[in-house]
């Protein structure tokens, strides 16, 4: 399989220069390296510019509703553990309307990779505050500046107990591709925050150009990615320092949700062809 095999005919309607172009390229490449056939991949997203991404791949895509990619992805993975399941969306999709689903997906630990394209803005709706917009930012919905502190996706998921947490930027597409590949290969829930600039409504001072200049590889900081508290401390710099690479990777990932389910099926001696037996429970002996 090659990257191009994962590229669909649909022409992206993203603005010229949108960071998401680089993200989908990185995903093509990660898929190719892993080599699962497109029809064995389920790619789920919410709603947003970024959430259009499944349509630009040849996988089974599901562009669902705003904020619900994770519950739907879990339903797919739980009922079809054989599939490679990817979820993706924007910062608003994942940490505003969808924020309530993240901790629960993480504590269940299904083998799903969740990619957030974090542009610190609402792109599709034309430039309102997103939960990751810095305090004071003036946008279409906050002309006098935001009065709220931003959320910290990296710190949140670490607190939720995520077993794989990483960050990347399309400014380093190959680097992003290998991060995503590692996330997909990780046996369990993996979270990748991608700093993916919005050229149209995003902050001019946070575009790919600056990313190139400012990004800092975690490997080069001597960070021990097996130390959750250390990762949490670094994560505090979210919004200030653009770290790329793996913040945390659980040395022993533990069982996935679907593995626990499989064990239960064994314990219950599950068999699909005994279904009608269930009625015997009501029999009046």
């Amino acid at each position: 399989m090659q990257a191009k095999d994962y590229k669909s005919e649909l022409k992206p309607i993203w603005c010229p220069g949108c960071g998401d172009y680089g993200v989908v390229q990185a995903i093509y490449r990660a898929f190719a390296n892993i080599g699962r056939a497109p029809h064995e991949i389920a790619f789920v997203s919410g709603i947003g510019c970024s959430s259009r991404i499944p349509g630009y791949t040849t996988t089974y895509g599901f562009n669902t509703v705003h904020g619900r990619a994770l519950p739907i992805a879990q339903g797919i993975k739980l009922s079809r553990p054989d599939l490679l399941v990817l979820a993706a969306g924007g910062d608003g999709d994942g940490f505003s309307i969808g924020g309530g689903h993240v901790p629960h997906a993480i504590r269940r630990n299904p083998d799903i990779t969740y990619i957030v394209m974090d542009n610190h803005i609402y792109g599709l709706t034309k430039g309102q505050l997103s939960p990751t917009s810095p305090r004071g930012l003036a946008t279409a919905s906050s002309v006098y500046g935001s009065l709220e502190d931003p959320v910290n996706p990296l710190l949140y998921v670490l607190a939720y107990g995520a077993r794989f947490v990483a960050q990347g930027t399309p400014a380093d597409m190959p680097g992003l591709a290998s991060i995503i590949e590692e996330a997909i290969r990780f046996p369990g829930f993996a979270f990748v925050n991608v700093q993916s600039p919005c050229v149209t409504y995003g902050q001019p001072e946070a575009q790919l150009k600056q990313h190139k200049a400012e990004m800092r590889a975690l490997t080069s900081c001597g960070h021990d990615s097996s130390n959750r508290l250390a990762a949490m401390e670094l994560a505090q710099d979210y919004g200030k320092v653009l770290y790329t690479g793996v913040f945390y990777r659980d040395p022993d990932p533990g069982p996935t949700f679907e593995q626990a389910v499989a064990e239960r099926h064994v314990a219950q001696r599950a068999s699909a062809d005994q279904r009608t037996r269930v009625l015997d429970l009501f029999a009046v002996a």
Partner: protein
Amino acid sequence: PAGTAFAPCRAMRELTIGMAGAGGDGVVSAGESLITAAALEGYHAILTKSFGPQIRGGESSFRLRISTAPVYTPAGMLDVAIALNWDDFLRFGAELPVGGQTILIYDAQHAAGPGVSQLAGMTPGEIVGAPIAALAREIAGHDGAKNTVVLGLLAEWFGFVPDPLLAGLRKRFAKKSQEVLERNERAFDAGRRYAEQHPIASARRLAPARLPGESARPTLLADGNEMCAAAAIVAGCTFFGGYPITPSTEIMHFLGREMWKHGGVVLQAEDEIAGAGAAVGASFAGKKAMTATSGPGMSLKTEMLGLASIAELPLVCVNVQRGGPSTGMPTKSEQSDLFQAVFSAHGDVVRPVLAPTGVADMFATTVEAFNIAEQYQTPVILLSDGEIGLRKEVVDRIDPAAFTIVDRRRPSPRELESYARYAFTESGISPISEPGMAGGNYLAAGIEHNEHGAPSSGGANHARMNEKRIRKLDPLTRWRGAATVVGDPDAPIGLIAWGSVAGIARDALQRADALGVHAKLLVPILLYPVAQPAYDDFFASIRAGLIVEQSSQGQLYRLLRMFVTIPSGVTSFARSGANPFTPAEIAERLAGLAQQLQRSRVPELQVAVD
């Protein structure tokens, strides 16, 4: 001796018993013992339970109707009423109606006067004080055995065969110490002995359900929620995503015990949106999926159900209705979520809505819900209610082999060669692929799409897709199973009722018949899309009638007006939840309609009615 069961004196074909007491009195387990015993003897029976708002320690009660013939509702006046204490008994008001024929049994440790005086001017046929608590303490050493004493009294006074009741006791206390069991057996005997020594004036005996020696017909005993869950498993459902809510939670409980054994998965999600979402995901992945909830949860699932409609994904969503609006009255049954079931989605959506009428048809209706979901690639609302969900019925054995199980139409290898997920077909149904099928890859979306699933904002495509999604359901309006009709097809008086009220209406029809009223009953199982032909046939002979429902707005009546021409003589008889209908009052209204028709000048009616 079993003999006592068949003594000659005033044998009755059926008996309705109501009992109330405080939490801890074991009122409900007494009811369970009685219906189990009745089932073992081959009786038809329905048991409903009702509680106060407290989680624990609050008042509780049951109604049990036992009969030698099929029964459709536990509603109506009580033949026997048992009050362990007056306050708790009276709290249930109309749920435990005492009439002139009722034998009212109370615990003699409380004076009769104060309680009886509050029976809203109704004098029971006979009032019997029995030392229930006293016997329990004396014989078993504590109040906990009061319910067992009552079982003894009932066995003796009303001719319940003791053996199955004793067997039930042994089951119930199997886990407890031998001593506890013996205490209760003694309490049971004490009750019987007391009754023997204190015969009641208007003694009645329940006629046997079978001849001596003849073995009882094989039956099942289940409540509506259990039956719904079991039917889902039989229908091939392997994924359930839900969130607890009264009175639907028992569906998840049952599946949480049983689904795993059949290779399925049960997810208690973080909320109703996620529960429905996970089910939508499972359906996209090719599995039959279900979610279940009640009013407030339905309100939260609105968006996800709309997604399933436009993405054309099969899904069964159960709503066990309770009193609304909002949190409303969680422990009371109502039929006020019909409008929502039909119309909650934004955009032009038609979504099938099915309603079972009791435990007896819950299995078939649930299987049908899955079949329709799969056949038409659509979410289906199974509109149950708290009354059905929580009541136990003795029902005939079910032969699963007698039911067809429908699976979604998947694309053939040839069709996969040039596949379009949302291809415009004659039926409007397009073969549906699932991950893992090479060549079936497509983009599912809540966004309007073209035949290939690609986003489209073109007007022509949108109009065609709307038309496709709606037209594909047309066959349902002509479905034979959409409604059942009971009574003379040519009757001029008509009754329409759905859900748990249908059984009451069916009883009412029998009573009306006894009054010489010439009426028939239509019970819709498919509430939406409205099966117009079935109603047109039904109304053809109708001059007057009632549409009876447990909602203050008369939602079915309004819904029917949208699509059917209702004869002017047919009016809405609607009432808020927790205000139960009785067969008698409905029968009286029908009789009233019959008299009006006779007074009216239309000649053929003079003929029709008499």
